[in-house]
């Protein structure tokens, strides 16, 4: 089992009242799964993804990630964990505008303190694989949306994560570009990477092997 959520609750205090963002979520994800999370806007999809990605905490429940109990880990250790095993892909790409494509790709490796020569090889590898060698010296603003998301995915993959979390990765793309990204995910999944994606599109959800529906913070 890659990760396991048991009775996860998350809430915020608003005007003296508890507003639940996640209610009693139970989820087991095995290695190699491709899961799509769906639900209406405001149902808590992003929140769930953030919790899984350890970017956000929760108030009750247990979270096990690869035999570690995330809910008992200290901040620093948790950061180590996700740095090691998790890659993010965002709807808004979130590339750094001041850095070139090459430098954007290189950044996670810098934070993992990977040596220069090895780093070079890994970046070159990624550029090659995603067919963007010719774009490596361009800045993100000089790319189309689809190309930017391609870089976003490449950056998430470069540190060889076990799990990719993607929050509406195709939300800003046209259907052709979206389809390309989905094909790419499918292929990665076949190579053994676990993927959890949030999507609004039935068609994209079909790429996954399992669909989770959320409604008002509850799994249905």
């Amino acid at each position, binding site marked *: 089992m890659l990760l396991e959520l048991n009775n996860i609750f998350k809430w915020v205090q608003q005007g003296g009242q508890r507003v639940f963002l996640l209610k009693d979520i139970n989820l087991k994800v095995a290695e190699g799964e491709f899961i799509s999370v769906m639900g209406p806007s405001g149902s808590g999809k992003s929140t769930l993804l*953030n919790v899984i990605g350890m970017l956000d905490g929760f108030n009750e429940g247990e979270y096990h990630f690869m035999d570690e109990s995330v809910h008992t880990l200290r901040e620093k250790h948790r950061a180590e964990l996700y740095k090691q095993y998790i890659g993010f892909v965002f709807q808004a790409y979130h590339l750094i505008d001041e850095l070139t494509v090459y430098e954007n790709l290189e950044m996670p490796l810098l934070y*993992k303190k990977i040596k220069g020569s090895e780093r070079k090889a890994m970046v070159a590898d990624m550029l090659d694989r995603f067919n963007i060698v010719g774009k490596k010296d361009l800045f993100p603003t000089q790319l189309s949306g689809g190309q930017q998301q391609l870089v976003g995915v490449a950056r998430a993959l470069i540190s060889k994560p076990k799990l990719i979390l993607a929050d509406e990765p195709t939300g800003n793309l046209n259907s052709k570009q979206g389809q390309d990204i989905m094909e790419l995910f499918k292929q990665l999944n076949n190579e053994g990477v676990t993927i959890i994606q949030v999507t609004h599109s039935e068609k994209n959800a079909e790429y996954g092997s399992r669909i989770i529906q959320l409604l008002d913070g509850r799994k249905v």
Partner: protein
Amino acid sequence: MFKTYLKAAWRNMLEKKGESILNIGGLAIGMAAALLIGMWVVSELSFNKEFENYDRIAQVMQSQTFGGEISTNTFQPMQLAPVLRDTYGDYFKQVVTGSFTNAMLLTVGKKKVSRTGNFMEPGITEMLSLKMMQGRRDALNDPGSILLSETTANTLFGNADPMGKVVKIGTTMETQVAGIYEDIPENSEFGNLTFIAPWELLKITANFEERVGWGNNWFQTYVQLEDGADFSTVSNLIKDVKYNNIKNGDDPSSIRTKPVIHLHPMEKWHLYSKFENGVNTGGLIERVWLFGIIGVFILLLACINFMNLSTAKSVKRAKEVGIRKTIGSVKGQLITQFLSEALLLVTMAFAISFVLVLLARPFFNELTGKALVIPWSTPLFWVVCVCFVLTTAIISGSYPAFYLSSFEPAKVLKGTFNRGQGASRLRKGLVVFQFSISIVLIIGTITIFSQIEYVKERPVGYDREQLLYVPITTSGLITHFDTLRDELLESSDIAEVAASDVLVTGTFTTNGGFDWKGKDPNMSEQFNTLRATHGYGEMIDWEIKEGRNFSKEFKSDSLAFIVNETAVKYMGLENPVGEYVQWGDIGNFKIIGVIKDMVTQSPYDEVRPMLFTLHYGDFLNFINIKIGNDSNTKDALAHIESVLQKYDPESLFTYTFFDEEYARNFINEERMAKLASFFSLLAILISCLGIFGLSAFVAEQRSKEIGIRKVLGASVLGLWKMLSKDFILLVALSSCIAVPLGYHYMNEWVQEYSYRIAISWWIFAIAILGALVITLLTVSFQAFKAAVINPIKSLRTE
């Protein structure tokens, strides 16, 4: 239209309170500093200007050559004024001899007060255009008269009519009040002239006619030129007056000093009082310039903050500019809009700076030793204020206005707007400018303080502890000195008593006319001298290197010198003890001892050759008293007072400890140091406010990037480093600029002192380190704040 601009500006300001407070606060501090300095500069520049004859009055100066050096001062023989009047009368409206303005005891009935005043010739009242409240300006013609200032009259007589009443000056001179004049403005050379007594009175009482000649430079001479005469012509005419008179007269020995008489116009007294080798080289004006420039710089630093924050913010306002342009606003209107915004902020800052000035004024007055006034009622003041606000608004507002209004709407709205490389580079340049100035100021402050410390630590060569003096104001104390001394010593609290003509902290009396074996005949020698009674040397615990102290056992000691080591070198003597020195027609003196050099003049200067002699009777001006080191000071003082009151019942008992007297040497320098530290603190504060705002802006601008980096695994420490690094680099660059500048200026400054520190590396190290630490603290606050934020917060907003 203007109103809508202001409305928009007002809302903009309210929306970003923190930023506005930073912006306005920084400007207000800068403006307050500039205002304070401005007031000080104006007050220095208007010194003496309230006299009607400001541009016609001069002081007569005398330059003399000693050992190849020309020294210039105001001291004149009393014979000078009559010659000027008689021979050169066509050029002068008034020629006035006076003594020196001093604190003197005034007695009316039982009432005694100490007031500063002077004995002067009658012409002084016309010269200074005294505003008489009672009596006439010519009243001083009567040698038995006295003129009182309004305040002095009030203190002495209260509500009673003072005219015709008797006032005793000192213990002997009786005068009648013949006039009351309005107080002379404090911001002037004569501000402490609170009474004027006739010069004739002093001359007769002190028997000057018999005693003093052309060689006794004991007085001052002021002149007022006739209309049409000019200073340099008249100066040139009279330059040899003294020389010619001593050549024919009674004191040929002082011809060697080649005395030159010249005029120093009132316009220059205050700001250009320094003479170097006979040439008028400046004076306080240098300090006025220095602080004036510092004031301008501080204001500039504050304006820079404003510019930097405005252009930094511009990214956010770019959209507004784009929209405004697409709905038809032309560039000129946008410039007006942004300038009105600047004007609004500057006006608010000015209002606050006014409050700051009012709050800081007492402190600043203490610092400068001035009583600065805010001339609320003069229209000119308000005109200047308005100009000041407009200038500040234009300096700080114009660049942002032009910069912002030049944005191209298409680019801005499409979002392909580049973040303004040019503006960001300029911002960096301005920050470097700010920190260069701040660091130079810090270097200056540290240098000044360490120079003062260094001089304070200078060993003076005698023991000041528990040593005090009492000025001798009546001959009663001198004639009975021996019995007085015995009575003082009756108390075991008193260790020793000796009288002297000058104080060991200021042996400024110089004498010439000496001759000794092997003296270079062309040498125009000059020694500083101190005359004292027996026991003086033992009392101050000077260190005998050779020979012995004065002793009552040797009657011949009345013709003996004790000299200091510098004098031995100056005279070129191999074995000084036992040598003889002829002193004019006073006598042939035997050198009986050599003492280790003592600091008896300015501690900033080299030790000068000194001669000490035994002396009793006339010319002793001070009784020096050493209280035992273990004694109770209070009891000792009580004893001293009771004994002195017995011999001099008329005077007020006043005393001064030599520690205090010595501390006066540092008043000017310490004032300078305090001012410098005050302004460098302001400069660094303003600069820090600037980078505080900038770093906040940078952190905000990069918040998305910070979020992404965090998600990708950046640590808080790493992010903090990334955000602080740029600023640290800027400050490092500033240091590179500031160090040579600071070294250059401070090296020049210390050259003014002969006893001085070498400017060493640690001064720069401290300044740089200080600037770096302060920057780091300022920037870190924002950097850390940005780095610990949960990344999903900053990423969600997209």
